[in-house]
């Protein structure tokens, strides 16, 4: 297949906590060097991503999504399996890698760009574009530590997208900045796809995965649970994680809400991933909208988890 950007075969990654992490002097002296309890982070993961495709990776926390992305970025060697990545890769794995908060935004554009593999001249050429995209003209000579977290993230995203990679690896960044900036970043990523660029997108924002990705991979405990067109995969994943305890004041969950699949936990609030729209929710669950008293998005990007406002009666 010539139009594949990524071919992953039978990827396996194990973490051996004792051996890999910290052989301490004490452990060495005791001669306890190797323990058998390995943690399998990825187990026989195989997939292909076509050139120009948006490819989503979804799954609960600890499923191995970030590990997989690191294998794709080739910063982590798999223990078994092969991975072909064809094209210049850029990672938006963690925003602002390489930044130095004491230095000015200007200086950090160079640091970030150079860290991403550009030359100094290339950063100079793209400088205005980056700053323009981040909308930070006014603050570019201020130390980075004076930036708000939104400004910080905007600058980091602007650098990442302007590396103009053929393959962009994205880990949860669309949640940065205000709504206008989010729209802008999504557009920039679409533009990348239109230029036949490839995006591998790890997110808990199901709406974003659905709108940006053609196909999705659902990871569960390190293994591929489902792989295919984004819409159905996302729906099946969402259904598996929903706790169907939709309740009004004292009301019992309705049968339609109950059969939604293996519930992990029962709560009075609805636990759902990426479900921002109460009307769509009520349709999906088969319960009247007024019975939904609230929902919780457990994986709100940015680490904040909040109970959303109940829909107005």
């Amino acid at each position, binding site marked *: 297949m010539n139009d594949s950007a990524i071919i992953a075969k039978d990827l396996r990654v194990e*973490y051996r906590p004792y051996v*890999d*992490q*910290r*052989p*301490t*002097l004490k452990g060495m002296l005791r001669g306890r060097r190797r323990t058998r309890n390995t943690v399998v982070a990825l187990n026989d993961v195989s997939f292909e991503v076509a050139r120009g495709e948006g490819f989503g990776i979804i799954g609960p926390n600890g499923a191995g999504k970030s590990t997989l992305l*690191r294998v794709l*970025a*080739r*910063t*982590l*060697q798999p223990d078994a399996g*092969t*991975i*072909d*990545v*064809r094209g210049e*890769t850029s*990672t938006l*794995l*963690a925003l602002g*890698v*390489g930044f*130095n908060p*004491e*230095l000015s935004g200007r*200086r950090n554009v*160079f*640091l970030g760009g*150079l*860290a*991403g*593999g550009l*030359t*100094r001249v290339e950063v100079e050429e793209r400088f205005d574009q980056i700053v323009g995209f981040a909308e930070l003209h006014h603050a570019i000579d201020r*130390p980075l530590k004076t930036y708000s977290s939104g400004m910080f993230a905007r600058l980091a995203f602007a650098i990442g997208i302007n590396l103009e990679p053929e393959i962009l690896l994205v880990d949860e960044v669309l949640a940065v900045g205000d709504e206008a900036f989010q729209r802008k970043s999504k557009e920039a990523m679409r533009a990348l796809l239109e230029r036949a660029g490839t995006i591998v997108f790890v997110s808990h924002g199901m709406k974003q995965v659905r709108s940006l990705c053609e196909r999705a991979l659902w990871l569960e405990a390190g293994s591929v649970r489902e792989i295919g067109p984004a819409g159905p995969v996302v729906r099946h994943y969402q259904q598996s994680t929903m706790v169907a305890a939709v309740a009004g004041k004292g009301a019992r969950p309705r049968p339609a809400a109950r059969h939604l699949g293996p519930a992990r936990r029962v709560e009075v609030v609805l636990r759902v991933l990426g479900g921002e729209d109460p009307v769509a929710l009520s349709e999906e669950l088969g319960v009247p909208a007024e019975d939904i008293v609230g929902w919780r998005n457990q994986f709100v990007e940015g680490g904040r988890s909040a109970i959303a406002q109940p829909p107005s009666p």
Partner: protein
Amino acid sequence: MIAAVKPRRARPISYARDLWARREFTWFLAVGRMKAQNASTVLGLVWWIVNPLLLGMIYLLVFGVVLQSARAQPDYLGYLLSGIFAFYYTRQAVNGAASSLLTSARMIANLRFPRLVLPLASLVEAAAGFLASLLVLILTVGLYGGHWPNAQFLLLVPAFLLQTMFNLGISGVVARLALPFRDLHNLVPYLMRLWLYLSPIIWPLSMLENAPEWAQQVLTANPMFSILGLYRMAFLGWPFELQTLLTAAAWSVGSVLVGVWVFVRAEDKMARYL
């Protein structure tokens, strides 16, 4: 078909090319850190000069005045300061290397580049500090002992280059070991102190003559012995000895080969230690 990424066996030439392609990145990392340091402390980079100078003054007081090493070593101040300043360069390089990977954990986890960039950036930082501090050393040695730069002063160039190579090798080993063995971080200051005392810096050279044979052999086998010898030829007008130059060169080449090899060989595993 592009070759599957099997565990990458680092090939020296392609590795060197990758590293060369990242030279600007290395430079910006080092300069950025220096600027940041300058911005966050009042004296900033002046500390690079003040630190070894203060250390020199303490040793001068303790060993020169109280213990009277000064009598046994002609030109003791110049001897002491040239030793301390040069040693301080290696010390800073080792300290920087020990933390270079740990402080850049996020970069290692997320970005692909030759990891040697990180200890190299620390080394650039240490080298810049050392070169800046040389001005003070030249002034002190000139004003106090009357040793102003002459033709032999040019030996500073090989001395600096060889020590830099030597430091790079040590940095590679230390950075490699500090990643899994975090204990090393606590040990480094003591090891460096021991090394300082074993080097001809505070004790007069004449002490060697009275020492037992085995001690002489141990002390002169110290790579610092020949490296410091070169600096003293440059600064203090000690007579030039080819053997010192060759010994220093042998140590430096050996160190850089072994150190870089040890480091690069472990690169693939580094992301797992973080």
